[in-house]
């Protein structure tokens, strides 16, 4: 079935279906509520958020800045990431493709309720800004000892 030239249409449709499923999983079922601060996919910069038992880790994929060109602020559990991507266009050139983001950007994220806003640390390496928040100690999972 795979790799056949005559069967490519079916494969393409499968890929579309898969894409649609992915999107549906991402946005939840059509009737389900979405986060009020959800943004359209493709917003700049791309962000991944992960949680561990003790921390919330945020990865901001914003290449081409210097570490002091980011501005981060936290208000309760709202994190605002803003900055300005410098243009790299050399003088006197013709542009064929201009897909990279240039100029100011801003994204607001709502973090889980249990983060400690004062515990944030941020590091910029290879074009990824990694922000880490500690979670409040009382909300961490605890093991309960079972006694005989």
């Amino acid at each position, binding site marked *: *079935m*795979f*790799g*056949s*030239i*005559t*069967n490519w249409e079916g494969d393409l449709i499968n*890929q579309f279906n898969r894409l649609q499923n*992915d999107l549906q999983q991402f946005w939840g079922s059509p009737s389900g509520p979405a986060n009020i601060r959800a943004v359209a*996919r493709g*917003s700049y*910069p*791309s*962000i*991944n*958020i*992960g*949680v*561990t*038992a003790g*921390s*919330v*880790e945020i*990865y901001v*994929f*914003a*290449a*081409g*800045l*210097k570490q002091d060109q980011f501005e981060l602020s936290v208000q309760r559990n709202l994190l605002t990431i803003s900055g300005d991507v410098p243009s*790299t*266009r*050399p003088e*006197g*050139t*013709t*542009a*064929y*493709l*201009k*897909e*990279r*983001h240039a100029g100011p950007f801003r994204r607001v994220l709502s973090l*889980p309720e249990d983060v400690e806003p004062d515990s944030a640390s941020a590091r*910029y*390496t*290879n*074009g*990824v800004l*990694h922000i880490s928040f500690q979670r409040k100690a009382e909300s961490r999972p605890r093991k309960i000892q079972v006694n005989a």
Partner: protein
Amino acid sequence: MTKQQNITTQSEPAATADNEPRLVLRPAVDIFENGDAIKLFADLPGVADNTLSLEIDDQTLTLQGDIALDMPGDIESLYADIRSTHYQRAFTLSSELDTARIHASLANGVLTVTIPKREEVRPRKIEVTAG
């Protein structure tokens, strides 16, 4: 007739069936040109020097890179815009470009590739003399 052909072609490439198409990120690029060279900028956030590969095969320039993030072991994803760790994109070059003298550098996740044009095709100013 065509049906029979279908069957034969379908049974052949069974070996490729295991090759699940890998989700690939298409990096955003800017391409600029002046009289001397073409300059390409590609956003590859998360790619380090040692996870980047840049290849020229005949007239095709292929750039690939893998995202290497510093992540705690027990991390669970809560939200993800980036759903793959592999970037790939290819460009066809043209014969006036001097592929032997390509220069590339990577800084803060931005790859810069400079492809100079061959000397003989660079634009020359023609002096106009009065007389």
